[in-house]
């Protein structure tokens, strides 16, 4: 029970300080899940996030379910997700009910312009960390460069990037396995 409460509260905190899409939860996940609670390694988080890209639903929710499941099974998956969405439920409904002009208030605009700058800095740091975990050799550098350029220039859906990189990963591994078999 104490474990589940801790899981809920941790994801509540992550949900309350994620501003933007799934990418913006990475700094919070790295800090809370990897460093503080040690519920998952950097590599596992990267794997979960990758799966979250190509499975249905909101990426942040998918990642939460994954970590919750790993920690406490099916119930953990539900509890982590509940924690992640609770702040949104509360905050959005309060705003929808009482502050319909919220997004247009001057100080809100200024605060969020500031928050976006912080998110930019934090996500850059998250990318550097992910690079150290996920890009280990020349193949990794090439896949990164290809995925980056294709997304930047052609603005393709992340799903194609995911499918392409899975294909490359398997093809390279098969070639290597065959190379070793021949030696």
């Amino acid at each position, binding site marked *: 029970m104490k474990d589940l409460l801790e899981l809920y509260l941790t994801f509540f905190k992550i*949900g*309350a300080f*994620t501003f*933007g*899409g799934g*990418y913006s939860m*990475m700094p*919070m996940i790295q800090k809370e899940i990897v460093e503080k609670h040690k519920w998952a390694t950097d590599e596992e988080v990267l794997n979960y*996030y990758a*799966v979250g890209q190509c*499975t*249905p*639903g*909101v*990426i942040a929710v*998918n990642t939460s*379910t994954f970590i919750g499941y790993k920690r406490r099974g*099916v119930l953990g*998956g539900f509890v982590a*997700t509940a924690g992640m*969405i609770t702040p*949104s*439920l509360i*905050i959005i*409904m309060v*705003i*929808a009910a009482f502050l319909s002009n919220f997004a247009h208030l001057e*100080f*809100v605009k*200024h*605060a*969020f312009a*500031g*928050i*976006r*700058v*912080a998110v930019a*800095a*934090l*996500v*850059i*740091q998250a*990318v*550097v960390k*992910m*690079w150290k975990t*996920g890009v280990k050799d020349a193949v990794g550098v090439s896949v*990164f460069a*290809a*995925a980056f350029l294709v*997304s930047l220039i052609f603005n393709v859906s992340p*799903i194609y*990037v*995911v499918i392409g*990189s*899975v*294909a490359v990963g398997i093809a*390279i*591994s*098969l070639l290597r396995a065959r190379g070793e078999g021949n030696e």
Partner: protein
Amino acid sequence: MSSLATLALVAAEFFKTGLFAVGGGLATLPFLYNMADKYPWFDRTQLADMIAVSESTPGPIGVNMSTYAGFNAGGIIGGIVSTCSLVLPSVIVIIIVAKFLDKFSENFYVKSAFYGLRPAVTALIAIASVEILKISILSLDTFFATGNPLFIFNLKSLIIFVPLVFVVFKWKPHPIFCIIGAAVLGIILKL
């Protein structure tokens, strides 16, 4: 329409959205536009405002938008029903995938797939950071309008950004401190 029937519709629509919107919160947008056209819950103009609110409040954008939409459709219960319906398919799918991965984590193909995926996902987040850099510290519109290279960067944002990057990399503070600090600075500097 009775409110129970509305709630059932809300649940069905958001379950469908959660099941078929692949690729993150903004992938839910086409589904919401479709709902705006089909139901009297909210119209496209309100939707634009809902997106603005979802982007400037804590929480994943997809979850925020579904809560807002559900609230418009059926009050507090509507908001809870819509968001729970939205996340239910992912929770089920992820639990199945997680079970599969537990079993096959040492499988050759699974390992090879992740070997290719990890750098690709790193690139996707790098792209996301480029996008937020563009909207947070660049002011390209003013630059193109005036042609003055002084306007490439939004100077006030840069005043926050440069020390913040230094602090983030040097002392690795908790992201919460950075976010609150930057919000306060944003208000003080009228960013």
